[in-house]
Structure formats: structure tokens, C-alpha cells
């Protein structure tokens, strides 16, 4: 949607590790989605005067960054966490498998377009038949792509209905990890913020870009799926790359210091991606999820008013790190490994046995780690005049049965921080692998188009 006036936006500007390119429009249009290059402005009506890239690329403004939509894995998982989130869970209203597939085709095409800075449809917000509504809602026109990623997942209820019904002939494809999450101690889940057949995570550095994505995808879903709940997030609470500084949650503490990072490829294979062996262990045919992962979403309200009147001593004791630097209380700096054996006065451990850092640490969780990608949220206030604020916890894991449920049971039962936390929403989704590069059906303008032959996220589930 970028206007073609700024030469900076004419340049491909993927993540630092994306392949550089300085090709003109024709090459970009063909390769753009296949090769993960930016095609901002390449849609009909946007490409005029951009057949060549005459000057060397100036430094890319952060807002005009794009990430490839295609790849082995979906984007928006190991992608350096953007600052903003809009996540939507959908209930599928379609009853036929064909309608469901058609929805996924529409969504995949739109996502491929939006993430590359294109409009949702080929005409864009201000062109096309005059007596038809525009094929893009328009609020992202003139804005740069802002690093938008769109990630899709499937909930258990897509496979098995509430009454056990096999809604779309997928029951025998249900992966073993897509369980009903148990009730965790002190859970106070709102059914209206829990579950969903499908999930769409849109992340961007500009909230309007993320909202624009969900809005256009929701529009494309009418008649096939309807929004069940959504969550806006700001101030990413995790870093997913070593290049990112550790951000802070609404308790004021650094969050995600020990997160699995994009650069740790061996750890990603061990803790995030679903291995081929998982399908072999399943009673069902779940090979379609190989290379995918699971998304755990938990809306965790923080009782920030009572937290704020808690002494610094108690705050640090409960977390197990100091507030200023994020160093473990056993000593060192932020990235020093906690030493749970270090004791202080009366031989008590410096990192308390009920502290969050201890109970969440791999040493006390059979070595498991998670890739967290959470965000802060503030959804107005409650009737008591308190902020309805907290942490929207998002974690991508290889299997929630080993990598989430045991740890959450332990935290919910014993974590001292629980006094200040309340889980109010929940979702678990299987996130299929990515769409293959070069598989899109392209229109006359060289941009992706939805046809009966278009590829889609999770295609292996339906074939």
C-alpha cells in the first residue's frame, strides 16, 4: 500500500538475513512471494515509474521492513518480535470441507499480499469498479508494511466438535498435542475469550497495520467464519532474537530473558518445531503438522494495583531477578545463568523456592524451553476502577503436553507471583508449517490471486 513516491520503499527490505535484491519490478513481481522479497508497490496501479532502481538503496526505514510470507515455517514465530499484536480467534460457520478450504485459500492469498505491503485485493482501496466496494478497507494506504507477519493456526474444535462430531472429516488427522488444556489452579477463564476453531496472529510495528490485516481477513471470512474473540497487544514482552533488547512487562520487570531465540537453531528443533517422529507416535495421521508447532495463548490479567503497593523486596523475591537489570538474585548480570544453590542468610536460597524464575526454569521443568512471543495489554478498566491489564502470553512449542502443561500446573500451584495474576482467557492451536516458496498463482500484475488452485496454509491437512 505504500505510495510509490518514496524511493526508500522501493527497495527490498527484509530482515537482516533475508536475501538482498536490487532487481526491477518484473523480477520482483515474479519472485517476490516465492523468494521472500519485498514487492511493495508492485500491485496494479502502484508500480508506475519503478521499473528500475536507479540509486543504491538508502538505509531502510524500520516501518518499511517486510518479512517473507513463504518458507519452511510460517512467519511470525521466530521473526524478531514486532511491537504490536492483533490476534483473532474464529469460529468456523461453514459446514463443508470445501468451504473451509476456500476460506483458507482466500486468507492465504490475502496474507501473502498484505505482508508484502500489497493491498488485500488487486484493485486496492481506491480503485476498481465504481459500484463495488473497494477490495481493501483502506486504512493502511500510505502506511509502510511495518514488518507485518500473519500466522495461522487450527484449534482442536476444528477437528472434533463439542459433541464429538467430525465436522470436516479431520478427526483422524487430530495431532496428539492438540489436547483440551486442563483447568490450571486459580484459572478464571471467560468462555468468551477462550478457544476457537482458527486463530490468526497479526504482528506489526504499527498497530493500524495489524488491525488492518485482521479486519480484511475477517471480511474475507464472512459466511465461512466469524470472530470469537480478539486481543490487542502492545510492548512485546519477549525478544525472539539476540539482536533485540529484553523488554519489560507491566510488572516493570524484564520478560523473556531466557527465551528461545531465532539464532538457536538446535534449540528451535528441540523445543519449537514438531519433528517427524511426533506423527509416528500419534495414533492419528498427523504428518501434516511436521515442521509446524503449537501456539499456546493465555490472557493473564495482572493485579497491577496491588502489585504497585508491594515492596521492592517482595517484587524481586517473587520474580527471582532484580528489577533494574534483570539479573538473577544469585548474582551476575541479565544473561548470567541463575544459580539456585546460592544461599544467603540462614542458608536460604537467594532465589526463593517459590520464585517465578525458578519454577519456570528448564532445570525444574525436565529441561523444556518455550519460544515466547507475548505482549502487554490494557483493555480499558473494570467496574472497580482498576485497569484490565496484563500479559497476553503467547508461546510456540513442539508439544504442549511436555512443554507447557506441566510447567503451568507447577506455576499456577506454587508461583508466588500467582497472587498477582489471573488467567482470564486461553487457547491452544496447531500451527501448520509454511507455504512453499514459488507456489502462488499470480495474476496479470504478478501478484498472488485466489483461484481454486491457489496454495494455502495447512494444505497438507486436507490432502
Amino acid at each position, binding site marked *: 500500500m505504500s505510495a510509490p513516491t518514496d524511493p526508500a520503499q522501493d527497495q527490498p527490505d527484509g530482515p537482516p538475513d533475508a536475501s538482498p535484491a536490487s532487481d526491477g519490478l518484473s523480477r520482483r513481481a515474479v519472485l517476490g512471494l516465492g523468494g521472500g522479497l519485498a514487492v511493495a508497490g508492485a500491485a496494479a496501479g502502484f508500480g508506475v515509474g519503478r521499473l528500475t532502481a536507479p540509486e543504491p538503496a538508502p538505509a531502510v526505514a524500520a516501518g518499511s521492513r517486510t518479512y517473507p510470507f513463504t518458507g519452511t515455517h510460517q512467519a511470525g514465530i521466530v521473526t524478531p518480535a514486532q511491537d504490536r499484536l492483533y490476534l483473532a480467534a474464529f469460529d468456523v460457520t461453514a459446514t463443508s470441507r470445501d468451504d473451509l478450504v476456500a476460506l483458507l485459500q482466500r486468507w492465504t492469498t490475502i496474507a501473502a499480499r498484505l505482508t508484502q505491503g500489497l493491498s488485500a485485493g488487486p484493485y486496492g482501496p481506491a480503485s476498481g469498479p465504481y459500484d463495488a466496494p473497494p477490495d481493501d478497507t483502506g486504512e493502511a494506504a500510505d502506511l509502510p508494511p511495518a514488518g507485518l507477519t500473519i500466522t495461522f493456526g487450527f484449534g482442536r474444535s476444528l477437528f472434533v466438535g463439542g459433541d464429538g462430531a467430525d465436522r470436516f472429516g479431520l478427526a483422524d488427522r487430530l495431532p496428539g498435542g492438540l489436547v483440551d488444556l486442563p483447568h*490450571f489452579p486459580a484459572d478464571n477463564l471467560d468462555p468468551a475469550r477462550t478457544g476457537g476453531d482458527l486463530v490468526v496472529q497479526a504482528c506489526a510495528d504499527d498497530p493500524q497495520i495489524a488491525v488492518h490485516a485482521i479486519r480484511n481477513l475477517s471480511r474475507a471470512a464472512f459466511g465461512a467464519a466469524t470472530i470469537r474473540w480478539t486481543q490487542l497487544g502492545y510492548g512485546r514482552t519477549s525478544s525472539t532474537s539476540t539482536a533485540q533488547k529484553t523488554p519489560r512487562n507491566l510488572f516493570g520487570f524484564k520478560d523473556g530473558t531466557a527465551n528461545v531465540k531465532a539464532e538457536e537453531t538446535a534449540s528451535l528443533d528441540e523445543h519449537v518445531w514438531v519433528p517427524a517422529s511426533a506423527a509416528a507416535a500419534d495414533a492419528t495421521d498427523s504428518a501434516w503438522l511436521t515442521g509446524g508447532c503449537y501456539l499456546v495463548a493465555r490472557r493473564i490479567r495482572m493485579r497491577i494495583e496491588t502489585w504497585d*503497593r508491594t515492596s521492592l523486596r517482595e517484587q524481586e523475591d517473587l520474580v527471582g531477578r532484580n528489577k*533494574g537489570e534483570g539479573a538473577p538474585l*544469585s548474582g551476575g548480570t541479565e544473561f548470567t545463568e541463575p544459580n539456585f544453590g*546460592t544461599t*544467603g*542468610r540462614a542458608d536460604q536460597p537467594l532465589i526463593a523456592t517459590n520464585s517465578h524464575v525458578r519454577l519456570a526454569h528448564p532445570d525444574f521443568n525436565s529441561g523444556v524451553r518455550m519460544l515466547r512471543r507475548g505482549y502487554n495489554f490494557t483493555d480499558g478498566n473494570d*467496574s*472497580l476502577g482498576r485497569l484490565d491489564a496484563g500479559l497476553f502470553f503467547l508461546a510456540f512449542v513442539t508439544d504442549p503436553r511436555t512443554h507447557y502443561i506441566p510447567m503451568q500446573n507447577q506455576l499456577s500451584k506454587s508461583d508466588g507471583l500467582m*497472587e498477582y495474576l489471573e488467567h482470564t482467557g486461553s487457547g491452544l492451536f496447531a500451527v501448520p508449517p509454511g507455504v512453499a516458496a514459488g507456489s502462488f498463482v499470480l495474476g496479470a500484475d504478478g501478484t498472488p490471486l485466489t483461484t481454486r488452485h491457489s496454495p494455502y496454509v495447512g494444505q497438507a491437512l486436507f490432502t
Partner: protein
Amino acid sequence: MTRSTVGALALAALVLPLAAGCVSNSPTPSGDGTSGAPGVLSVSSTADACDVSAATAPSGTITFQVKNDGSDVTEFYLLGEDGLRVISEVENVGPGISRDLVVQARPGKYFTACKPGMVGDGIRAAFTVTDSGTEVGPTGDTADQLKTAETQYVAYVKDQVGALIAGTKEFAAAYKAGDDDKARELYAPTRAHWERIEPVAESFGDLDPLTDAREADLEDGQTWSGWHYIEKDLWQPTADKNGGKDYTPLTQAEREKAADDLVGYTQQLVDQVNKPDFTFEAFQIANGAKALLDEVANGKVTGEEEIWSHTDLWDFQANVDGARVGYEGLADVVEAENPDLAAELEQRFTEIDALLAEQGSIETGFTSYDKLSKDQVKALATAVDALSEPLSQLTTTVTGA
């Protein structure tokens, strides 16, 4: 509370903002006439050194920014002239960690000491606090008052626990005998004794969850016991309030076990608080008072504690009672250290008690929580916040004394 006290507090409330205004408008006093540079000093603690950035500081608020530059856990002390009396301290500072020691110091001679490895007498140096002209509270004169507060609070806890076990036995007997009306009548007033001292019970590990867990607090498959287990059986929910499932009343055998377990756990609490080594320190009383208000803010004001019986206001009043008793024991110290805080706390306690009195009392019964209007709940929550905020200053005021 007598009428005359209420009147005096109302007057204090009127006077307070004016007094506070005067204080904040005065220039920062400075003994040597230089501009009020804050008394901020850095301390570097290593295996063999305790480097304090200056050996002298003006009286008033002094901040030691202690950095552990060594490889052992360290402590930092400000000691009196005799080298024995601890004026203040920070402990458990891990290697590489920084922590502030903020102390109100009167003019005089002191010692600073780092204790790397937390053994021995530490690495000491003489330290002088010069007279800045700032008035500093009566540091050191409060030991007896704190001691008295600690003794009184232990007596209060034993008294409440004594009443609790007596009431619990009566309640359990009625419930076992199938006299549900009597059990329902005894439920809330008996629990008040528990709620007044709840943080004490919480300090005994599993006793709190065994006695007071709500259904939502349980892990999948965990056995439920205690007050709320019986509450649900006495105020049996309809299916739509029970996750869509019909509630199955407890059998007589289950009733008897539930009642006996409750008495048993309560007896364990009685035994714990009557051990000779059961003591309370002033900071624990102060933290406990704040914790009681947190209980109100998190559970009672939202109506989540007594989800079947809706007797939350009994718990609410009892939590406030317990916090007030904790505060009142320390009130003389607070009065001396920070009279404004003392006045504000008196006022806020009075306000919240007045608000609760509109809905009844523990003796005569309260309004059922589900019958309160949204505005009434909001007013209660606002009063809790108004009291909790100054109450959160209690610990630092008492430990700084």
C-alpha cells in the same frame, strides 16, 4: 470506636492537607547552607574491601548504593557508635547485584561494614553523620514499643485461633448432624476468626490451601477440602452455576470426613501458634496488615471468595479488623516516625469501617454480597485502595524506626 475519637479523626482529616502543604512548601533544610544535595553514597563490596564513596554524610535521609563487586554473597550494615547496634542493613546481595540501603540517620558517629561471605565481623570503617539541621525521627527509642507490639500481636493471634477452633467444632458438629440451618448460620461468623489472621495461617505451608482453597484454586484431579468444600454443599448451586453439571450433594460419609478434616487442620493451626517458638516480628505484622488488605482487594471485593454463600462481607470486615489490630499495635511507632501517615491510616480505617457498617456487622449479619449494587461495590473497592496505599508504607516506616 467512640464518638469522640471519630470527631478527633474528622478534625485530623481537615487539618492534614494543610499541614502537608506546609511541609512540601518549605525549602529543603541544609545544615551547612549548601544546596540540598541528596546524601547518596556508593559502596563497593569486594572480598577484601568495603569502599564507601565518602566517610561522612549530612543527617537525614542517606542512601547507600551497595554494589557487590566481589564473588561471594555480601551484606552491608550501618552500625552505631558501639559497633554493635545495627541501625540498618541490606542482606543477601548476590555477586554483581546492586541494592540500596536507605536510612534515616541522626548526627553522630557510626561504622559502615561489608560482610562478604556473610561471616565474621565484616570489613569496617568509621562513618560520621554531620548535623544538617534536618529533624530525624526518634531512632532507637522504639525498641520497647515494637517489642510490646510483637507480644500483643502474638496474643491476638492465639485468641483468634482459640475462638476459631471452638467455632469450627460447633460448626462441624451441626453439619455432621445434618443441621444445615445451624451450620449456615455459624459459617461466616466462625470464618471471621480465620480471616482476621489469614496471613499467619498462610505462613504454615499447606494448611492454608487445605483449609481455605476455593474450587477454582485446585489442580485437575486434586482433592478438595476445607471451608469452601463444605460451603458448596451448604449452598448447593444449580447446574447453570456449576459448569452446566448437576451438583451432587455429599454423602453422610463424605460430610463426616469433610467436617473432621476441617477440625483437624484447624487443630494443626492451633498447635502451631501455641508452640513456644511462635513469635512475630514487627515487619511481619506490618506486612501482614498489608497482605490482609490485598486479600480484600483480590478476593472479597470481587465476590470470588464466597462464591456460593455470598458471605464475602464477613470476610471483608474480618480482614480489615485484622489489619487494624496489626496497625494499632504499631501505631505509637508510626505516630512517632511519621505522624501524617498515622493520621491518614486512622482516617482510612474509619472510612472503610463506616462503609462496612452501612451493610451490617459480623455479629448481626451483613448484606449478601450478590445483593450489593455496582456502585456499592465500587465504593468499597475505592475505600480498600485508599487504605491499602498508605498501609503499604507501614513496613518501611516500622523497619526504619
